[in-house]
Structures are given as C-alpha cells and as structure tokens.
C-alpha cells in the first residue's frame, strides 16, 4: 500500500511532528508499505494529487495538522487518512468548543471562562477579572485555547499573577481560557478505534507539588503505564474518557487528558493527534496493551481504511 506520511508543517510543534513522522515511516517500511514522506508545505495538494497515495498517515501536531485543516483537504481530495475527521479535529483543537461538547454530554470538566483579546482591548474585560477569579478561586490555570501541547499554560496563584499569565497565553492564541484548578492525579487515556488502552499516569518526580510549571518540563515527570488504579477507579476513568472521545466525534484514535480528583474524573481535553515519538504516551499505552509500535501503526491504518470511518 502506498502511504503518505504527513509531518512537519509550520506549527510550533514541528519538532515533535518530525519525530513522530520519522518513527511512523520506519514502522510502515518494516510493514512492507510504500512510504511517501511529506514535510507539509504549499505544495501539499499538488503532491497528493500527483502521487495518489492509498492512504495518508497524519503525523502532524498543532495548528494546521491537528485542527482539521489538513483533514479537510484530505476529505476534499478523497484520500482516506488516519485519526479523527476534520470536524472532530477542529473541536479537539479548540479547548472552548471541546469543553462545551464535554459539558453538553453531561461529563464533568473544571469551570472555565474564555476570552479573546478583543474582549480585553475593546470591551474592558479586565474589569470582570475580579468576579471571575472569585468564581474560579486560586490557583487558577490560564491556557491558550488552541494548541495540544503545554506551551503557554500558566498557573496564577494570586490575582496579581493573572495579567502576566494572560499575556503569556495570548502569545500563542487570540483566545484564552481561565480554568479552575482541580487537584488530583494526572491521567491520560488513549483510545484506539473504540478501545481504551491502559491508562497512563504522569507523576512529578521531585520538588514541590505546587511547582506547577515542573509538570511540563521533560525529565521532571515520570509516566507510569498502566497507572495503579482500583477496578472501580479504572472503570470510571476509561468510561469518562470514552464518552469524551465520542462526544467530540473522534474516530481512529485520540488521547483524552483528565484529572482524577477525590470526587472522580474531571475531563480536561482531548488530543486528536497525540505524539507518536519514542517517549509519547499513546505508543506507551499501546505497548502496555501488548501492541508493538508496528502493530499500532497497522491498526491505525486499518481504522483509517475501515468503511465506517470518517
């Protein structure tokens, strides 16, 4: 089979995407497929039309590759592709839309408010910050609305830190989210087709648990898979993740991030195209389920070509 591997592009997560792509290409070659690596640029459509691949493996992260843009093009060109469809990608990428969908499905997600820059620049939204902080409490989390990685995510511990956190988050996106901080275990559930894979837990290796930024520093967090969960907890977590995946309209695969608090799981977001590098969570979870990376890639391809998909 001729498989186009779409990778790179201009997003901030280009580096990770190139690593995901390279690893997928290796696996595809070992599986005996004809591999067409494409570092996505202005010639993408031309190349796809000329090369006519049987299927496209989308190994892109962030804006352009994970937000439905590339998926929309592939849908127009009639090329089957891996991972969720354009609409689901767009929904996952936009944390506000995602949280709306999660809430509509009756699933718990931390309280939040979303603002775009215009609200602050033109409508004096800053004057509403006090009220909003009262509702959310401290610490609170400030995130760019788009973007799958942790870039730009800040924790504000007091009202004085909120404007600075907003300035940072607005560096990545025109819209930002202020979200209630929920204390608990940080879990990620990857879903393949309709099957939840073993749960991954991120555990802070060292230091103050309120050193929030450390969570996003590679090397300061350890990932455990499968996470040590009681049977009841595990059921609750995987069910909530699967329900989120469905609420967002995901197909193929996705990774749902959540916090397991005292009262149960809180859904944070879903990544439509989770990383596929050596250290990424989806491959780790697949391996814990007994799937080698090749088997994972093959399964992802099968799902892309299955008639019900997309």
């Amino acid at each position, binding site marked *: 089979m001729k498989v186009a591997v779409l990778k790179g592009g201009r997003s901030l*997560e280009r*580096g990770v995407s190139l690593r995901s792509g390279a690893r997928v290409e290796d696996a595809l070659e070992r599986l005996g497929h004809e591999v067409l690596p494409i570092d996505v640029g202005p010639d993408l459509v031309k190349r796809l039309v000329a090369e006519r691949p049987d299927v496209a493996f989308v190994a892109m992260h962030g804006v352009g590759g994970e937000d439905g843009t590339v998926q929309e093009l592939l849908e127009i060109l009639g090329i089957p592709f891996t991972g969720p469809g354009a609409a689901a990608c767009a929904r996952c990428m936009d944390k506000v839309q995602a949280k709306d969908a999660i809430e509509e499905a009756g699933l718990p997600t931390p309280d939040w408010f979303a603002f775009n820059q215009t609200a602050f620049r033109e409508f004096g939204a800053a004057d509403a910050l006090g009220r909003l902080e009262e509702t959310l409490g401290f610490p609170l989390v400030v995130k760019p609305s788009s973007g799958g990685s942790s870039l730009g995510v800040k924790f504000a511990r007091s009202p004085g830190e909120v404007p600075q956190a907003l*300035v*940072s988050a*607005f560096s990545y996106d025109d819209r930002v989210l202020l979200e209630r901080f929920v204390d608990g275990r940080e879990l990620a559930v990857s879903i393949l087709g309709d099957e939840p894979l073993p749960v991954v837990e991120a555990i802070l290796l060292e230091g103050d648990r309120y050193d929030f930024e450390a969570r996003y520093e590679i*090397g300061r967090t350890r990932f455990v898979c499968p996470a040590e969960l009681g049977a009841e907890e595990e059921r609750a977590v995987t069910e909530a993740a699967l329900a989120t995946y469905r609420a967002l309209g995901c197909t193929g695969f996705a990774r749902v991030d959540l916090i397991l608090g005292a009262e149960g799981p809180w859904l944070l977001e879903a990544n439509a195209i989770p990383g596929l590098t050596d250290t990424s969570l989806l491959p780790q979870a697949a391996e814990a389920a007994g799937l080698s990376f090749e088997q994972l890639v093959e399964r992802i391809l099968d799902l892309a070509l299955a008639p019900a998909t997309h």
Partner: protein
Amino acid sequence: MSEVPEPTHRRRAHTSGRDLERYAGLFAERTTVMRSSAMRDLMAITARPEVISLAGGLPDTSTFPPQSFAAQMTRIAQESAAKALQYGPTEGFEETKDCILEVMGAEGMLPDPDDIIVTTGGQQAIDLVCKTLVDPGDVVICEAPTYPGAVPVFCSYQADVIQVECDEDGMRIDLLEKLLGELRGEGRRPKFIYSVPSFQNPAGVTLSLERRRRLVELAREQEILVVEDNPYGLLRYSGEPMPPLYQLDGGDFVIYLGTFSKILSPGIRLGWAVAPPPVMEKIVLGKQAADLCTSTLTQYFVREYFAERRWQHYIDDLVELYRTRRDVMLEALRTHFPAEATWTEPEGGLFIWATLPDYIDTNDLLAKALRADVAFVPGQGAYVDGRGTHSMRLNFSGVDENEIREGVRRIGKVIAEQVELYGTLTGEQRLPEPAEEPEPNVLPFRKAEEA
C-alpha cells in the same frame, strides 16, 4: 550472483517504550540533569528560511575569500598530504601553537607554548577543564547570565553552579567576594570561577579594568582558579582595549580559553586552553581519552592561513562589518523597542542582551515572534535557576543590515502588542516608574556602587 544486497533500512529502528525502560536503568546519573524542553522544539522552527534569525551565534563566514581557502587547501594537499591526514600530538602541533601565540600576543599575552593545548573548539576546552577539576557537587561560579553553552557542560559534571550577577561592567566582584566569604564559612571551596570578561555571551558586557584587577587579586589571595573564556577579545568595535585576566595574573591562577571560531572559522573546530603545568598535565590526559588529538587537517589549514600574514587584516574587516551591524541593531532597538525595554550596548563581540518588563516571558514571546517570522534566544538558557525569562539574546554578526532592521522591527512589534495588552489588563497604559531603585544586583544592567 555475488551482489551485495541493498541495505533495507535507512534509519536505525526506533526503540520501543520497553527498550527505553531497559536503557533507563543503564543511564549514568549525570544524564538525569541533562534536560530537554519544549523550547528546544520551538528553536527547531527558527531554521525555516522565511524566519529572520537573530537567535544564532554565528560569525559571518561568507566574508572569507573562497580563492584563498582553495589555495591554502591545495598547498596542504600538494606539500603535506600524508601528514595532514595522519594523527597528531595530543597537545597539538607546535606550528599551531605558534599561531595561537600570535593571536594571544595581539592582546598582550605571552604564554609558554608548553602550557598550551590545542582543542576541538573552545567548547571542548570548557569540557576538559570541568573533566579535570569538577567532581559531582563541587561549586563552580559563573556570571549571571552566563554563556548558555557552558551550562550543559557544568551540569553534565554535576557541578553546583552558583551565578553572580552582572551589571554593565561585567560580573559584580563585590558580590563575588561576598559569595566567596559565605562559601568559606560553609567550608566549601569553589573549583573555579568561569568568566567571559570581554563582550560577554550573552550579555555583551565587558568586565571593567578595576574589576579585572580585583578578580585576579582575589584568585591569588584565596588560591582559586579563574577560567577566562575569551572568544571575542579581538572583536572590539569601540572603547579602549582591556588586558585579559591572563595577562594581569601572569597565568598562575588563570586558565585561559581561546578559539579560532570567531576570528577565522567555527567549522574548523579549533580552540585552545592555557593552564599551569600541573593542571595542563591532567587536561592532556583528559584530551587523550576524549579524542586523542585535534583534527590535524584543520591545524594544517590554520598554519597555512597564518603563513600568509593576513589574519589580522581579516579581523580588521570583520571588525568593520560587525561594528556597522552592531550600530544598526542599536539604532533599530532605539526605534522599534518600547520604552519599557532596556538593552546592553556592547563594545565588541556578537551579542546584545535586551530585558523586557517582568510580565513578559520571552519563552512565550518567542512563539508569537515566530509567527511574525523572527527569532531570538530566550534568556532562560543563560541561567541555571530558571531566571532570565524576561530577557533575550540578539545576535548581530550573522545577518545583514536589512535583516537586522527588519528583525528588530518585528520583535519590537510583538513586544509592543504585549505591553499594550498588559496595560489593558491592569488598567495601566504605561508601567509606572519603579517607586524605588530595583535590587542593585538584578538585571537590567544598572551600574552598581562598588562595595
């Protein structure tokens, strides 16, 4: 049929998570302090052709005439092919040392050739010094900010790095003295003080003569080694030449590091270290273990190049070129950076260090800047403790004047947007003047009273 089969895989098979787990048990403890970050991925984007990168630290090698390069290499091929392709002595060729003596002589230094070792770039010299002197937990003192490329070296030897603030006259020696006193009280003796005294990377500042004298005096009094890293000393565009610490000290307590990277070519990977004989003995053993000897081919190239007796003219050309570029960048900063920003005005070297209001995180700003197709180095990499997040390093040697102007304009624009946004968020259109003097030992560079 005796055909060799085509290799089936271009790349090594990637490892699985389980493999990683297996290797994890094998990693040395020092690897745990080697950290990667999302920032590194961001920097990958700066390589896009449409991005104006003020992030590099590159000399402009396009000014080196290709014809002379061809002639020199041809002479080597014709006259010394066998030797140039052979191993060489670990310490480096005597002829290379002669060239080094010329370069150091131009700054008033006259070391014993036996005290010199030729290294694979100045970076290896830093590594060898650490390898020779640093045990895990040992104290190494350096400037704040310090050369970002030295941080991973110190960390890989598990040094306890303590940074001493700089102002526009370089490292605050009064603070250093205080620190040394405190350390003595704890019974800890620093292994060395690392400094880039002239046109520092990244801050662009130069250690004043008075402070140089005091630093050398301190080293002597307390018998502490100073590692003087001087890659840019000859690239002075204004102001009076400053004696290197090595010259002031005479080489008893100063280990000197030099390089051909900024005055000739970084691609030839040729640097050197000068150290007192007992230290040198150990450095040579370390070098032997690391790579036996520095490239003989490039040592031959330097010998040929110096034989033409034009090396100083080439530096004069570089000085002309970089002076203009520095001036263009300073002018552009005045034009395009908001009033809240400060920056250093280097008398030489390759870098300007700009500091923004403390509500702007330069790591995040880089993401916004990259969308405007311009890049800089966020300041955090120049600190070991996470500081530096409001500063950035700007390079003016590797890009032409138009790109400098346009690059600075683009960065200025994204900063201005953030400043305005912050004003909107806090209800202040402009930052008020600070009510009191900021802490004397913090950036932005403000001349401090000597203690």
